[in-house]
């Protein structure tokens, strides 16, 4: 009471702080902008946080913890939920015994992503209740709300953030009283958790029943707030769009939605009926406006041009005015480039020189597509380098097929490349194939996170390590090489020429630490062997 705990926190830090205060036993995830700092802060605050090899595994680990009665958090960027979609769609059938909060951090505007998919669609498709905060305080509070909903209905809950929520710092007052951690304990309940068709059929009905109850509850829940204003204009909105709209149209009436699946449709109906013009302001897809119209409520949406990119105060003003004139393009800043001294540089210099057809992947090394290298021909999703490279090899005429190389980073290889390597051994193309794993000892792109190939945990402690060359040999690849192209460019070029010409399967691990990570890696290693002072 006496001293309020007031802090300036990013949305990510607020979620981490809330997870700690709400007694979460475990946080799992895979790095991805803008979600990465949630688990890092949770760990720094003393929570049990783990990087999984990918989002699917992370969600499964969290689900297991929630089956055991614990509260579990799983974090990922929007595209991560594609990878984790398989367990998610059935976790809504099995339900949970503790609490499971799935954080999806969407990236409208693609500040650092390959697409701008709108994951609100997943809530609808999987039948998972969804909460959306408008600032860090709400991000903090909604974690507690998510626990309440998850525990009451024994369902996973989606906490949907966007880049501006994750990375903006706003004032947060933490609760004085948190929640005591649950005590994990296993109860057999095969009918609930073993999804054979006979058990899954009633489980689906159970899910729909729960969602109907939640929709009913949401009609009067405090999560959706009416802020009365002028009758001439009513705005239905949620998430970051709320603060932009509030600033752009201060005098309007507002219905601010905190739970956006299932929607409080009767509340929306009453709100719309009470204003002359009812406008839905939402970033990204027309998710709200379509659902509201499908319920027979006449509301106005935004023009298609505002589906692209983030909203801001200016754009909301334009939406309000029905302005569809072309928007001014902001002056272009300086694009990012590979650091001077980056180990990826030597690789792309050689690939360019040999005129390779490069099936690429996602990471710092994707910058190999830009000048001066211009040595990448595709980049789709994490792991796609290998499958796409193999597909090209399978159908191209031999003289082109022989130039195809799959290039993938170390973290990306663990995330989504290992099954591609299995495919390469199982269905080898007639001309063979060359897989280049760029092992810079870190997940550089997202800010230097550990992964199973580094042999260190999220908090940089030694653990089991996946050794790529051993894995490739064990799987049956005969030609496996470990090289440092920066140190010996001529040797690397020679090896590449031989590998492309040999017609067999080749795996080359190009190993040299990321320039920004090298010093840190040495410090972690020293700390592990007890030699260093850890500083």
């Amino acid at each position, binding site marked *: 009471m006496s001293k309020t705990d007031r802090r300036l926190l990013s949305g990510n830090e607020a979620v981490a702080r809330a997870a700690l205060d709400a007694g979460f036993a475990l946080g799992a995830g895979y790095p991805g902008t803008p979600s990465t700092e949630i688990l890092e802060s949770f760990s720094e605050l003393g929570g049990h946080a783990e990087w999984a090899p990918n989002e699917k595994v992370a969600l499964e680990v969290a689900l297991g913890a929630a089956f055991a009665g614990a509260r579990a958090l799983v974090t990922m960027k929007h595209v991560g939920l594609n990878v984790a979609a398989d367990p998610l769609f059935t976790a809504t059938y099995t339900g949970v015994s503790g609490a499971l909060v799935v954080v999806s951090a969407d990236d409208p505007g693609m500040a650092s992503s390959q697409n701008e998919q709108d994951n609100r669609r997943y809530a609808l498709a999987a039948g998972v209740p969804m909460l959306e905060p408008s600032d860090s305080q709400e991000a903090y509070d909604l974690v507690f709300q998510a626990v309440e909903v998850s525990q009451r209905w024994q369902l996973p809950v989606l906490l949907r953030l966007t880049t501006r929520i994750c990375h903006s710092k706003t004032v947060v007052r933490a609760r004085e009283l948190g929640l005591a951690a649950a005590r994990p304990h296993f109860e057999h309940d095969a009918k609930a958790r073993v999804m054979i068709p006979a058990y899954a059929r009633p489980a689906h009905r159970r899910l729909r029943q729960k969602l109907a109850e939640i929709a009913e509850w949401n009609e009067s829940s405090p999560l959706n707030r009416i802020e009365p204003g002028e009758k001439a204009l009513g705005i239905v909105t949620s998430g970051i769009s709320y*603060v932009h709209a509030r*600033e752009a149209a201060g005098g309007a009436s507002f219905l601010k939605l905190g739970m956006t699946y299932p929607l409080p449709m009767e509340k929306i109906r009453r709100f719309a009926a009470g204003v002359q013009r009812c406008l839905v302001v939402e970033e990204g897809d027309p998710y709200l406006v379509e659902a509201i119209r499908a319920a027979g409520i006449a509301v106005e949406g935004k023009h298609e041009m505002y589906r692209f990119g983030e909203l801001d105060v*200016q754009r909301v003003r334009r939406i309000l005015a029905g302005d569809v004139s072309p928007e001014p393009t902001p002056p272009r800043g300086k694009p*990012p480039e590979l650091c001077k001294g*980056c180990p990826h540089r030597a690789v792309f210099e050689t690939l360019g020189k040999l005129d390779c057809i490069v099936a690429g992947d996602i990471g*710092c090394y994707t910058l190999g597509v830009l000048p001066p290298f211009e040595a990448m021909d595709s980049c789709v999703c994490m792991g796609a380098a290998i499958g796409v490279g193999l597909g090209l090899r399978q159908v191209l005429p031999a003289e082109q097929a022989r130039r195809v190389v799959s290039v993938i980073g170390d973290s990306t290889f663990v995330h989504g490349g290992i099954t591609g390597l299995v495919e390469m051994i199982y269905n080898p193309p007639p001309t063979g194939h060359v897989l280049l794993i760029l092992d810079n000892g870190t997940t550089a792109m997202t800010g230097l996170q550990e992964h199973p190939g580094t042999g260190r945990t999220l908090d940089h402690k030694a653990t089991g390590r996946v050794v790529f060359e051993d894995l490739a040999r064990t799987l049956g690849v005969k030609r496996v090489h470990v090289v440092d192209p920066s140190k010996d460019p001529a040797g690397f070029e020679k090896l590449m020429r031989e590998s492309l010409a040999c017609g067999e399967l080749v795996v080359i691990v190009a190993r040299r630490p990321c320039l920004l990570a090298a010093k840190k890696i040495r410090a972690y290693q020293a700390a592990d062997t007890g030699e260093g002072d850890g500083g």
Partner: protein
Amino acid sequence: MAGKVTNIVVAGRGGQGVLKASDILAEAAFRAGRDVKKSELHGMSQRGGSVTSDVRFGPQVLSPMVPAGETDYLVVLAADQVEVNRLELRQGGVLISPADIDENLLPNRRSLNVALLGVLSRHLDIAESDWMAAIQANLPEKLHEANAGAFALGRGSAGR
């Protein structure tokens, strides 16, 4: 209703300390008891690309992003980033750039960001003690002295 909000944009190139500067600024305003929102895009590790960060404070702040053309103070850490960001300034807004200080007097080249905050501080109603506390909270102890010096340089040399 929200009262007057002060809009500040800090801009520069990756690796120059743009985000550190905006963290210190936001924290100083926060310690001075204002509502504060700070926003930027980050994630890419690679150096060299353009970076900007928005800080807004006042009795109540809504959007975390400064609307284009409504920036009161534009703090630019790299001379070549001035033109790219100039459009952000409102009419009568103030540009603060490396030209505002004598860089040769900096105790450490890397504290240019904090020196320009010193220049900015002349325009803002935030106590020096709040600035110092914010600097200390955001930088390791071994850098406190150099940055206090850089801040004083900027604060003293503003308006030359």
